[in-house]
C-alpha cells in the first residue's frame, strides 16, 4: 500500500500543471511552415511541391485518400524522412533536414498509425519513456539512482500521473500494454506523446479501428489537450465526421499534391476535394 501523504502536499500537487513546450511564439502565429517540399523514393514521388503552415494553438488536419502522402508528410515534419527539395521552418528556424531525436528535443512528438508501444512494459513505464528527452541527469546519476536522480524521477512520475489522470487510464496503470484492447493502446500512445510536453503533437490516425464510443472519447481528449495544455496538434484522420468536428483548418492531399487548404467548411465546398476524395457534397 502506498503511504498516505498529508493533504497539504495534495494541494501543492494541484498547482502542478502540464504545459506545452514554452517558446516566444504567440498563439495564432505560424509555428511550422512547410515550403515547396518534395520527397521521392527512387522513382516514386510521395510528395511533390507541397506548402502549408501550422499555426500555434490550432488543430490542423491532414486528409486525403490512401497513398496521398499523409504519413510521409508527418514523417518529414518530425525528421524521420528528409525531403530532397524544400524547406521546413519550425519556430522561425529554417531547416532542410534534421534527425528525429532533434525534433523530439525541440518539442515535436507523435503517435503512430500502427501502435509502437513497448508491449511487455506497463502503461506507466511506457508513458515514463516519453519523459526521456526531459531528463536532465546523465546516465551516471541515473545509475546511482539515489539523490538528484531520484528527486528528478519523482517529478517525472508526478507528471506522468497527471497524464494518467487526464486520460482516465488509472485502472490500467500497471497492466502490460500488450494485454490491452486496441482503443486503450491508442490512448496510452497518446499519453506517451503527451509526456514529452510537446509544442507540436503529430497524430497519425488516432481513431483508426475504433468504435463510435472510443472515437468520441478520443476526440474529447484531443480537444482537451489542445485546450488545457495549449498544445498545437496536426493530425491525419480518415473519419470525415471527426475531422470536420474537431479541426480548425484542413489541408487536403491527393497523389502527393496539395489540392485544398482552409477551414473544414471551405474544404468541404472545394470542388477538387469533392472530386478527389469526398465524392459527394458535404452538407455542413
Amino acid at each position, binding site marked *: *500500500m502506498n503511504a498516505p*501523504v498529508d493533504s497539504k502536499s495534495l494541494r501543492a500537487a494541484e498547482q502542478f500543471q502540464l504545459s506545452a513546450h514554452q517558446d516566444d511564439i504567440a498563439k495564432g502565429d505560424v509555428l511550422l511552415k512547410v515550403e515547396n517540399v518534395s520527397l521521392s523514393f527512387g522513382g516514386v514521388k510521395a510528395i511533390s511541391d507541397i506548402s502549408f503552415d501550422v499555426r500555434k494553438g490550432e488543430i490542423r488536419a491532414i486528409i486525403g485518400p490512401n497513398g496521398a502522402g499523409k504519413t510521409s508528410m508527418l514523417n518529414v515534419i518530425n525528421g524521420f524522412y528528409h525531403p530532397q527539395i524544400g524547406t521546413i521552418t519550425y519556430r522561425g528556424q529554417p531547416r532542410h533536414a534534421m534527425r528525429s531525436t532533434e525534433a523530439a528535443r525541440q518539442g515535436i512528438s507523435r503517435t503512430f498509425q500502427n501502435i509502437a508501444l513497448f508491449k511487455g512494459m506497463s502503461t506507466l513505464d511506457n508513458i515514463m519513456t516519453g519523459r526521456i528527452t526531459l531528463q536532465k541527469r546523465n546516465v551516471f546519476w541515473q545509475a546511482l539512482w539515489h539523490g538528484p536522480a531520484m528527486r528528478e524521477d519523482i517529478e517525472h512520475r508526478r507528471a506522468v*500521473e497527471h497524464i494518467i489522470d487526464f486520460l482516465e487510464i488509472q*485502472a490500467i496503470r500497471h497492466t502490460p500494454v500488450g494485454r490491452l484492447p486496441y482503443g486503450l493502446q491508442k490512448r496510452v500512445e497518446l499519453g506517451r506523446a503527451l509526456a514529452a510536453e510537446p509544442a507540436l503533437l503529430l497524430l497519425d490516425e488516432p481513431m483508426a479501428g475504433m468504435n463510435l464510443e472510443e472515437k468520441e472519447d478520443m476526440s474529447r481528449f484531443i480537444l482537451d489537450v489542445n485546450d488545457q495544455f495549449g498544445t498545437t496538434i496536426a493530425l491525419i484522420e480518415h473519419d470525415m465526421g471527426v475531422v470536420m468536428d474537431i479541426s480548425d483548418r484542413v489541408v487536403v492531399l491527393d497523389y502527393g499534391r496539395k489540392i485544398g487548404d482552409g477551414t473544414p467548411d471551405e474544404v468541404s465546398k472545394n470542388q477538387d476535394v469533392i472530386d478527389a476524395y469526398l465524392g459527394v457534397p458535404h452538407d455542413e
Partner: protein
Amino acid sequence: MAQTDASLDTFPKYLLANAKRFGGRAAMRNKDLGIWQKWTWAELLEEIRDYSLGLEALGVKKDDKIAIVGQNRPRLYWTFCAAQAIGAVPVPVYADSVAEEMSYVLDHAGVVLAICQDQEQVDKVQSMADKLPSLKKIVYDEPRGLRDYDHENLHSIDEIQQRGKDIHAAEGDARWLKTIGQGKGDDLSVILYTSGTTGRPKGVMLTFDNLVSAAKSGCEFDHLDEHEETIAYLPLAWVGDHTFSYAQSYVAGFCVSCPESPETISEDRREIAPTYFFAPPRVFETLLTQIMVRMEDAGRTKKAMFGHFLAHARKVGERILNGEPVGAWDRLKYRIGDILVYGPLKNRLGMTKLRVGYTAGEAIGPEIFRFYRSLGLNLKQLYGQTEASVYVTAQPDGEIRADTVGRPSPGVEIKIADSGEVLYRSPGVFLGYYKDEEATRSTKTPDGWVHTGDAGFLDKEGHLKIIDRAKDVGKLNSGALFAPKYIENALKFFPNIKECVAFGDGRDYVAAFLNIDLTSVGNWAERNNISYASYQELANHPQVYEMMASHVDEVNRQLASEEMMAGAQVHRFLVLHKELDPDDGELTRTQKVRRSFIAERYAELIEALYDGSTEKFVSTEVTFEDGRKGKISATVKIADAKVHEVTAAGFKEAAE
C-alpha cells in the same frame, strides 16, 4: 462519550464532535494521482466549514434542496454535511440515470442548486435546465473541459470553498456554529429517491433522528467503532451507501475511502483492506467467478492445493466461524489452509481485515454465500428499505443461514399481515414521501407501520424469510399461501431446470410448467446413451420426466417442512415443448417470466393441469431469430407429483 452522544442529533453536530474526539484520526481518504491522500476529522471540519459558508454566500438558505449528481468523490460527500449545516436538504440522484428520469427528480424535489461531479453531469443538468424553473446555479467538482463555459451561473467547489475561507477569515465561525446548534433531530436530513421498479420515483424523506438512530443501532449490533475502514463505491443516492458511507461514518467516526475511479475498485479495495464491507450479491458472484477462472489457469500443484483446502473449508470453515466445536486435527488443518490458500485468497479479494460484510438487495446463491463464510469471512445478510433507513432485519453473528435475512434489527418491530405481507415499525421509519401524501398514506399506517411490499414469514427461531413480492402472492382455494417465485426459485435451484412457472392463485392446488436446461440435461442424456434430435424430443422423454419428478418431489419435501408453505406443494407438472423465449414475449429481456402473458398463451395447457388429463396436444406459434414465424406442435405429457405430509420442525435442519 455516552453523555455527549445523547446531545448529538444531527450530522453537522457529529462533525464538530468528531473533530474534537478523533481530531487526528483519518476521516476520509481519496486516491489521487496514484497516491492515497487523507483528511483527518479536524481537516474535514475545516473543509466542510469553508464549503458550507461558501454555499451560504451563494444564496443557499434553510430548507433549500440541493441535488448531488455524481459518483463517490470526497467533495460530494462533504456536500451532505455542508448543506445540512446551514439547514439545506441534500438530494443525491443516480448519476447514471437517463436524462428524463433525472429531470423528473430534480424538478419534483425543486432543487435550487445542483452539485455535479464533472463536465458530463454539468452538460446533463444544463440540457434540462429549461424544465427546472427552481434551479438557479450549477456547481462542479472536476473542472476539466469546463473552462470555456459561461460561468455566470456555474461555479467550482474550489471557488465556493475559497469564498467560504475568506468569510471565515473575516467574521469567524460563531454564526455558523450557532446555526448548527439550532439544528434538531426531527429536521429533514435528506431526500432519497427510490429508483422505483413501478411508476415514478418517490422521494423518501428521512430525518436526522431516523438516520442517526439507525446508524447507531447498526454500529452497536456489529460493534463498529472509529477503527473501521470502508470503501465507498455504491451510488450516493442509494440508502445503503448513505447509511454505510455517511451516517455510520459520522456516528462511529470511522474512515471512508473513495476509489480512484470506478474501474480501479478491486485494486483500491486490496490496498485499503476494509474491515466493514457491503456489496450486493452480484459483486460477490463476480469476485468468485474471477477467482475460479484464474484458478483454471493455475499450475497443477496450486490447483490441487486449492481444491483440497477448499473442500476442507467447506467441511469445517463455517462451523469454526460460528464458534461450534470442531476437532483439533481439523482446526490445525484449517490453520494450515489459512496460511497456504485462504489467506492469499482473502488478500486478493481485499478482505484480509474484514470483520463484518453484508449482502442485501436480492437473494444470494447459497453456494456463493457459503464459499465466503467457509474462508472465515463474516459475511451476513440483511433486509432493508430506504423507508426504514436501511435496517429491517439483519443476521446476528453466529446465527447465519443462507435462506433467511435474520432477526429484526434492534428497535424494529415486525408483523406479518394476513396477506403474507411484512410490516415493520422502527425509529428509522421515514417521515413520508416528498410531495406525495397519497403514496405516504398507502405505505405507512397512521400508527407508524410500514408496508414493505414483500411477502414473508418468521420462522421458528424468529428469523425473517422473504418469499416473494406481496402483489404476486396469492391464495389457494384451501386458504394456503401461494408464493410463485418461492416455488420457482426452489425448482430452478436444480441445474437441470432452466425456467419454471407456477400456477395456483384461486385454484385447488399448485401446478407448474418446467423448462429443462438443454446443456445440463443434454449432457446427462449423452452420458446415459439417450439419443434425441431436438429440445422438444428430449423434453418429452420418459426418463427426463422421471428426473423432473424427482426434483419436484425434493422441492415438495422442502415445502412440507415449512408450516407456511406446506399447502403450496406442486401436485402436477409438465415439461413445456418449447423453451420460454423473450423473442416470443414469454420472458422479459432481462429473463424474467411474464406470468400473465404465459397464462394467456398456454391457457389450454393450464386447464389440462387442472382437469386431470394425462396429455394434451398443443400447437404454438413461435418467432425465429430471423423474424420468420412458425408453429411448433406437440403432445405434452402431464405428470402427477408426490405430495408430502407436513413434517415436524425437526426436519428443518436436514432439509438443506
